[in-house]
């Protein structure tokens, strides 16, 4: 189950990580997927264990049934999100599920840590939006007058950003999944890693087909700064062991940089959908985790 979740997270995040560099023809589809896989695996192995803290804090001792409930509930939420075309955050859903299971068995105690997570979830999109606006305005005012030089640097920088986005996804989302089975974290890490490789190749192709709907249709500065903010915010969350959605922070950066570019017309339905998913994902995870534990347990 953890391997399967690793596969869907990896496949689902390919377009957010490498969509720009593949779509703009900088690298081939295969090279883009390889960059993402290297990032995922390095992130998972180097900083992934930091995210084990979530399960350790809320479920210090867990049974196989509880592990199964958590993974199954998260997988069901992901499938539901895909079927209804609502962009649900997997890391938030998984955290919500862990909390739901923890609440159901009466071990939900680490309130300080929970408050810190909630503060991050609320503030990260706001800060990313504000920083997106700030960076783009700063860029407009102080960047070099030679646009071609600037764009060449931004374009090359997007390759680095693609790798960093994959790295933080690997450490944060995949690390969170690998930390769920408490008694065998190393095996779980290997299985999630294998799952992410398979997911990138099998499911990533489908996600890449939707390229033009996503980040690729942005101006270079906006794409660069939103990815920089996405990767930077999630990396900060990694240091504190807080699960955070890469897509969520990148989306906030996109909104912020769009506002700075004097974007007067915004697709309000899409923005509403994104914001709703930020709230729906953990709430749904909590309810499903709680319900499944009561039913199966």
């Amino acid at each position, binding site marked *: 189950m953890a391997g399967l979740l690793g596969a869907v997270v990896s496949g689902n995040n390919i377009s957010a990580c490498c969509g720009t560099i593949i*779509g*703009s*023809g*900088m690298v081939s589809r295969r090279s883009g997927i390889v960059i993402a896989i290297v990032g995922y695996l390095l992130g998972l192995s180097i900083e992934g264990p930091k995210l084990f803290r979530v399960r350790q804090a809320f479920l210090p001792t867990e049974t196989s049934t509880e592990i199964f409930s958590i993974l199954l509930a998260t997988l069901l939420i992901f499938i539901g999100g895909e079927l209804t075309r609502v962009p649900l955050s997997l890391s938030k859903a998984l955290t919500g599920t862990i909390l739901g299971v923890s609440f159901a068995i009466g071990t939900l105690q680490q309130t300080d840590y929970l408050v810190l997570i909630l503060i991050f979830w609320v503030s990260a999109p706001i800060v990313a939006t504000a920083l997106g606006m700030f960076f783009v305005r700063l*860029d*407009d005012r102080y960047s070099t*007058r*030679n*646009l*071609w030089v*600037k*764009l*060449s*640097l931004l*374009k*090359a920088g997007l*390759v680095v950003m693609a790798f960093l986005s994959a790295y933080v996804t690997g450490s944060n989302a995949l690390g969170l999944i690998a930390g769920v089975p408490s008694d065998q974290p190393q095996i779980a890490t290997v299985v999630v890693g294998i799952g992410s490789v398979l997911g990138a190749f099998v499911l990533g192709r489908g996600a890449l087909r939707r390229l*033009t709907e996503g980040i*690729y*249709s*942005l*101006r*270079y*500065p906006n794409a660069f700064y939103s990815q920089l903010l996405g990767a930077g915010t999630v990396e900060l969350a990694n240091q504190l062991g807080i699960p955070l959605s890469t897509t969520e922070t990148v989306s906030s950066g996109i909104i912020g940089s769009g506002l700075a570019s004097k974007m007067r017309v915004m697709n309000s339905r899409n923005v509403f959908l994104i914001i709703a998913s930020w709230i729906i994902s953990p709430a749904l995870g909590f309810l499903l985790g709680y319900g499944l534990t009561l039913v199966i347990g």
Partner: protein
Amino acid sequence: MNRVIRRVKGFFQLGERDAFTRIDELASLGEESLHLLVKILTNSPNGLSDVETCTNRISLLEKQGDKIVQSLEEMFGKGSISALLMREFERLADSVDGVLDRAHALSRQIRRVTKKPLREAKEFDAIIRKDQVRLIEIALVQLQGLRKLFNTAGSDMKQSVELAKQIELLEEQGDDIKDNMLDEIYGSWEVLDYASFHNYIETTIEADDILDRCEDASDLVIVIMKGLGA
């Protein structure tokens, strides 16, 4: 090793800049076409063989232009440029290609008239041709400005906007000439037969269209540069 260097170089290479270079090539073909058109119109009375030679050369340039447009479309299809600006780039290529198409159509019409001269319009013809040359010469200045715009667009936005304004002013100047020409043609309906009347109206509108295309292209360059973050 060379492959790796090429790859790394590719990271810094901009599809948008390459597209501008290719469209500039297209504009250079347009420039040559307009020079030939002026030659056809000013060396009056032209021998048919001279007109034939120039028209054939313009046809060749138009075909070369079509090949460039095709290669640009392939380039866009491969995703070398930002999807956000794809439509603008397509329109830009189409506008500059339009100059070649119109120059081609005009040269063929002039060849047609040279082959079978219009009997009743000989005196009137000289006046109209003079104004047509003025229109084409304005288009030539516009096209030279447009080519300069392609080269300065990435490095100096202020100068680029200035160039676009100059091209727009030239288009307005051309509009006045076209209006005067049309007034002249309509005012002389009694001395013109149907074929002559139709010929002058069509060629005047066609010549003015070249100026419009140049102006559209310069506006699109500015739109693209702003879209790219200038």
